[in-house]
């Protein structure tokens, strides 16, 4: 069974310019330990798709299930309790360190400060950001910020990590190690759903999908891939 399952999800936004459909009947499955990457152009709705998949935004229609549970019914309770979400930009208050940031999720769940500190340090190390523990936001490079963001998520031991554009703005030499980290997480059994605006982000994913014009295209999971007979040319079929 898929850990994450989106079925016929629709999402629309309305603004001054009118109503815009972002997702049109999108269906997606991701199994345990699978690294799925969604590629899309700017404004294709890839970030919206990830927020809906993480349960941060509700779908207008369709269902989103995590481990068989409907996110619409469970609300944001699953966020942080099985689902971890890393956003593009890392924000934390001035004067606070990366370690403080990595502890926030734990402290808000009433984990004792001393225990939270140990777990956060472990998560920073797992994310390759142990050296950043005492750094403030301004001192972090784009790659380090992504690692700290991942550490905050990993500190809560998620089974699904949803990460929006993990390599955006990351310099060339740091990009592949970030992708390698996501691959490692998946190999360790964590399901990873990532978005990317650059084809670089697809490297070594188990599955790549394209989001365009509100539709998600690409290969389905291997177990769900239908065996389609070869379609004959129209003339042959009618003749």
């Amino acid at each position, binding site marked *: 069974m898929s850990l994450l399952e989106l079925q016929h999800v629709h999402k629309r936004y309305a603004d001054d310019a009118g109503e815009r459909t972002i997702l049109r009947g999108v269906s997606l499955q991701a199994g345990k330990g699978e690294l799925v990457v969604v*590629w899309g152009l700017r404004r294709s709705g890839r970030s919206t798709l990830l927020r809906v998949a993480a349960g941060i935004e509700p779908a207008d229609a369709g269902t989103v299930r995590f481990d068989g549970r409907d996110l619409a019914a469970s609300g944001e309770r699953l966020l942080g309790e099985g689902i971890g979400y890393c956003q593009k930009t890392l924000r934390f208050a001035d004067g606070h360190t990366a370690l403080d940031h990595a502890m926030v999720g734990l402290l808000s769940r009433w984990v004792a400060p001393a225990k939270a500190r140990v777990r956060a340090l472990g998560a920073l190390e797992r994310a390759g950001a142990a050296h950043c523990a005492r750094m403030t936001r301004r001192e972090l490079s784009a790659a380090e910020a992504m690692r700290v963001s991942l550490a905050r998520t990993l500190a809560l031991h998620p089974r699904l990590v949803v990460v929006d554009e993990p390599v955006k703005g990351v310099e060339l030499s740091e990009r592949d190690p970030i992708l390698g980290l996501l691959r490692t997480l998946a190999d360790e059994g964590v399901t990873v759903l990532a978005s990317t605006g*650059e084809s*670089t982000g*697809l490297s070594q994913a188990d599955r790549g999908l394209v989001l365009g014009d509100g539709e998600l295209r*690409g290969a389905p999971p291997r177990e769900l891939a239908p065996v389609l007979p070869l*379609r004959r040319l*129209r003339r042959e079929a009618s003749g």
Partner: protein
Amino acid sequence: MMIGARQPNLAINLRIRYAVVMKAGKASGDAAERGDAAPMRSPVNWALLGLVIERPSYAYDLAQRFERRYGETLPLSNVGHIYTALGVLDGRALVEEIPGTREGRQPKPHYRATALGLKRYGEWLIGQVGEDRRRNQLFVLALGALTNEPEQLRAVMAGYEQACLAEGIRTPIAGAQETGVDNAPALLGRLGEEENRLAVGAKLAWVQYARQELKKLSGHRRPE
């Protein structure tokens, strides 16, 4: 092809072939000097010229280096191809024999690039942009054959998109030891992969664009 595992008589055969192709190469070189030679299109010739520029050497060593450097990227049908290519390069005055290297009991004429060879090699590298354009145009023109078969066209576009995704996924992630600039072969490999990655992104973006445009086209068509 395993160059190191050749038969003993092969070296003699290759030397005979070498003499023949060098003579043929000289003849084409005369044409090059007159300016009526056809452009050199063989990627093997250009790749070999690159190896000579990198380090002057003799034919057999160049053949071995060729296999190590280009391997499956540019497979040789047989080792004799290198001798033929060397003859062509010599004939076109892109390489020249280093004086004094033909002497001795086992003469091994060494070759080095000429100033013209270095110049032409740079021009060929830059010209690859035009080659890409030609290949892309060929693809789009061939795709055009399906404009009256919209269903098939959509299926091909979807298949092409999936092939691009698969290509993007296949790209390896560089290990920490591969990213250092002091590791030249690894760096070359990374640069090659990087160009491929970026090309995949451009192709995926093109598919989105083409889909939109084809949708407009089908919208303007009158129903039959």
